[in-house]
C-alpha cells in the first residue's frame, strides 16, 4: 500500500472475501465480487484504525468501483452498483 495507486480506471478488481478485523467499510454483499474501477476517489485515513483511536496512517487509496447488480432473487439485473472500496480490500481480477 504505497503512495502510488495500485489500480487505474478500467482495471478489473475482486473484493477480498475475508473476515474483517474490527470496523470495516466494505459491505458484506460485495465481498468476493468482481467489479471495474471507475475512478480514484482520493487518499484517506484508514477508517479501521481511526475506529480504534489510532492515527489512520498511511492513508489508503479509495476507489469507486462498479459492480453488476444482483436482485433479491439472485439474478443479475440491468442496474449497476457503485461502491467506494479501499485499496486494502481489492485484488487484481483476471
Amino acid at each position, binding site marked *: 500500500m504505497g503512495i502510488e495507486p495500485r489500480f487505474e480506471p478500467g482495471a478489473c478488481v475482486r473484493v477480498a*472475501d*475475508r*473476515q*474483517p478485523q*474490527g*470496523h*470495516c467499510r466494505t*459491505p*458484506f*454483499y460485495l*465481498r*468476493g465480487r468482481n467489479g471495474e474501477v471507475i475512478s480514484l476517489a482520493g487518499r484517506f485515513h484508514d*477508517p*479501521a484504525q*481511526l*475506529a*480504534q*483511536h489510532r492515527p489512520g496512517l498511511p492513508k489508503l487509496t479509495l476507489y469507486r468501483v462498479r459492480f453488476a447488480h444482483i436482485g*433479491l432473487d439472485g439474478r443479475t439485473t440491468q442496474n449497476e452498483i457503485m461502491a467506494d472500496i479501499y485499496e486494502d480490500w481489492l485484488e487484481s481480477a483476471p
Partner: protein
Amino acid sequence: MTSTRAMHDIGGLDLGPIDRSEHPRTLHELRVDAILILLTSPACGAFKVDALRRAIEEFSQVDYDHLPYYDRWLQALTNLLIEQHVLSRGEIDARVAAITAEAAHGH
C-alpha cells in the same frame, strides 16, 4: 463467501419496505447531535466518528435492534468517553442521579 455477516451489515437482505416517515426533531435528538459534533470537532477530538460506528457495531444484538437512532449515538458516545478516560462510569452515574433528584424536587 468465507466471511460472516455482521449484525449491522444488512445491505442486500430482503427486509421489506423502508419506513421513510419523518417526525419533528426532539430536543433530546438535537442535544445528542450537538454533543457528538462537539466531541468529534478538531478542538475537542475525543474520538473520530469512525469510533462511534465501531462502538455501535459492538452493541448486543438486542440493543442494536431496539435502540432508536439517536439513542444508539448516545450509548456509543457514552461508552467511548469512558473508554477514552474522559469520564468514568461512576461520574456519569452520579451526575444522572443528581439531575434525577433535582427533577424529583420540582426544579
